[in-house]
């Protein structure tokens, strides 16, 4: 028997496929030149970053300005891996980071199950334990990675060069995302205990610290190929519209399914009222860190994609002033609205990078950043709750199962006839 697919799902998947195909054909037939295709890809990347931030701030209510720092971590990590592969033909960087990321991730998951049983453990002590474990495992990963690096390189060289490059690229982007997620876990653990605005300032500090480290990446961190404040060049330009679209599509699906699950409702309950959530048995600290880590993972993923669009990275693109960009996008689109975020990020990229550059007459290019804040202030004054408010596409909108359907499947466990609404947690199980 076929399960009936809801019409909204069909419309959404069909629409997504159509958008992908139209833009792909336009790019392939050079209807869209390089300029516009880059802008569209940047719009997609911004959409991923902003969706991550929307999960953290829009749905979970944690005012974070650190998204840009995680974006930078993802970008530089992925760029370093592919740079080493294409220019130096070595896979040691890939192996070290892959092993390190997996070891640390495993350790975090394992320690979390252990430490979860200890009652009354404060965040800072837990952080200290995770931090020490990360240090030890990091050293171990460097050692192991150097050992298996040549073998991995040999394995990849056996494949055709185009395929091996794509494999390295995909791995690099995913590793960048996981690394960003792990850093966000370590950083978020103690810092998420702070109040809302204080958390914002601490994460802003994180962005600035990352920027300072990137400015001195060649002298202080010892990565000569990142070239510090001069900017990293020679990264292969392999982020195509296909990869951007695929990542964006997966991120949207993951976020939609996450938000429609019981986890998602717990995450939203933290935003609505922490105390009421606690009273309902929601582990507030747990869900705060969950949303923060997933959001940062998206940021790292987007960073990896961004690094391979222009083939050039400069620390000034990760300036803390730019860290307001995703915040501006999600507020313009509407907090807690995925549709709004998607729309706003593409509009933002098209407007700021494309239209304003073309519309302004010769000699007025510098007016771009005078018009942009004016537009921003105007939109905020006219529509303080964002362009779309909390509107969602039907597919992304959370539809609670009707009471009737519930009574059919679970008629023995509850009494629907009494007319009492069913607890949300129960309804989807």
């Amino acid at each position, binding site marked *: 028997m076929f399960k009936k697919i809801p019409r909204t799902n069909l419309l959404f998947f069909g629409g997504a496929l159509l958008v992908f195909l139209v833009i792909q054909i336009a790019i392939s037939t050079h209807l869209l030149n390089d300029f516009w295709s880059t802008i569209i890809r940047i719009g997609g990347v911004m959409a991923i970053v902003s969706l991550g931030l929307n999960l953290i701030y829009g749905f979970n209510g944690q005012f974070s300005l650190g998204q840009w720092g995680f974006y930078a971590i993802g970008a530089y990590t992925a760029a370093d891996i592919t740079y080493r592969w294409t220019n130096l033909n070595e896979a040691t960087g890939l192996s070290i980071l892959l092993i390190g990321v997996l070891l640390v991730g495993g350790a975090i998951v394992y320690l979390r199950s252990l430490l979860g049983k200890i009652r009354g453990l404060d*965040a*800072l002590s837990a952080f200290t334990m995770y931090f020490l474990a990360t240090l030890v495992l990091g050293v171990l990963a460097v050692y192991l990675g150097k050992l298996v690096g040549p073998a991995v390189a040999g394995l990849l060289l056996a494949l055709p060069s185009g395929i091996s490059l794509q494999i390295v690229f995909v791995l690099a982007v995913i590793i960048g995302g996981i690394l960003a997620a792990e850093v966000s876990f370590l950083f978020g653990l103690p810092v998420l205990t702070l*109040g*809302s605005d204080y958390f914002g*300032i601490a994460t802003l*500090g994180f962005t600035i610290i990352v920027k300072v480290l990137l400015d001195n990446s060649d002298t202080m961190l010892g990565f000569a190929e990142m070239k510090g404040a001069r900017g990293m060049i020679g990264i292969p330009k392999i982020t195509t519209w296909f990869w951007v679209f695929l990542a964006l599509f997966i991120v949207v699906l993951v976020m939609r399914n996450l938000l429609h699950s019981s986890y998602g409702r717990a995450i939203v309950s933290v935003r609505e009222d922490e105390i009421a959530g606690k009273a309902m048995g929601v582990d507030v600290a747990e869900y705060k860190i969950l949303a923060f880590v997933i959001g940062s993972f998206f940021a790292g993923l987007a960073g990896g994609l961004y690094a391979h669009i222009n083939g050039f990275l400069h620390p000034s693109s990760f300036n803390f002033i730019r860290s307001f960009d995703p915040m501006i996008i999600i507020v313009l689109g509407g907090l807690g609205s995925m549709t709004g975020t998607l729309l706003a990020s593409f509009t933002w990229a098209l407007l700021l990078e494309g239209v304003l550059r073309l519309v302004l007459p010769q000699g007025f290019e510098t007016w771009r950043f*005078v018009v942009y804040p004016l537009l*921003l202030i105007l939109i*905020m*004054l006219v529509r303080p709750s964002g362009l779309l408010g909390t509107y969602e596409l039907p597919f992304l909108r959370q539809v609670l199962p009707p009471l009737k359907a519930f009574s059919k499947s679970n008629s023995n466990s509850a009494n629907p006839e009494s007319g009492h609404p069913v607890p949300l947690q129960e309804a989807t199980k």
Partner: protein
Amino acid sequence: MNATINQKPSLLETIIRKRWLGKGFLLAIAILAIYKLTISFLAGPTVFMQQVINGFQLGFVYALIALGYTMVYGIVRLINFAHGDVFMVGAFVSYYAIADFGLNTWPAKVMPGLPAWLSTAIGVISVVLLSMVSCAFLAFTIERIAYKPLRNAPRISALITAIGVSFFLEYFGALPIAFGPNFVTYQRPFEVVNWVISTSGIVALEPGVAPPDNTLIISNISLYIIIISLLLLFILNFFVRRTRVGKAMRATAYDKPTSRLMGINVDGIISVTFAIGAALAGAAGVLYATAFPQVYFAMGIIPGLKAFVAAVLGGIGSIPGALVGALIIGEAEVLSAAYISTPMRDAVAFSILVLVLLVRPTGIFGEPSREKA
């Protein structure tokens, strides 16, 4: 049964209950910092003291900016990101006043009989006053146009608007028709005099002569900065503590609806708060440009951010907190630039902030939060 009740908790339990791991982590960082400071001090006590003096000079400028942040945040819970750019405008106003109109020399022209030091002081004070008034007016306008319509909107809308205003001031300032996109050399409103402090007393240093080794040097820039900042701080403290408007300001910060019921013009008080904060930022702009004689359109970003960190560090909403936090940030910045590395100074300031917030979540002088922010 008695034995089980009086049983001593196991070592693991003690470690967890007393938070020894976290405390140990913080302690390790503190010991590292103290060790670094001691080593630096022993390596060259006079150089170290010189850096401390420079740190005070910077810290007092930060304190003036931080007051604007702390007052505005205390009253409307808005991180006013445009504050740093108001500071920039203040610096530029004083630059034009000095370079184009020679405002600092008017007492010497009008009243030639005055002693030189008095006419210089009056000239400097009039430049500072001009900057303060223009910044206050600018902030008042910004508040009326951009923030007042959003008083009842979600807090984030006002924040985004503040970011928009900040961008606008910066990039409008960068236009050739405004301040221009280049660094401009600032002309100080007074002649720089350096004094050498050594065991044999305080001697004025002749211009062009290299200072002797192992001595401290104080310039009249530091004196101007510290005197003007302290003066403004005392005036502000008097204003907030002793006048009717100050009382209304504190009431509004505590509870807006109730103060409105008590007959306080809340909107007016908020405007006054913005104007006073901006006036202090304008004074800070003059002093900062005097200390580091260069003005340009983006000069307000980093000092503004540092001052905000100082305000949070000291406990937002608290005036002595802003001073203490700013002095800590100023010292940390100068010392880390001297002894760790110049680019790390921003990172150090923020690391201190994060660590202090972990120990005292509302800052050094902050009160525990009364409500969900």
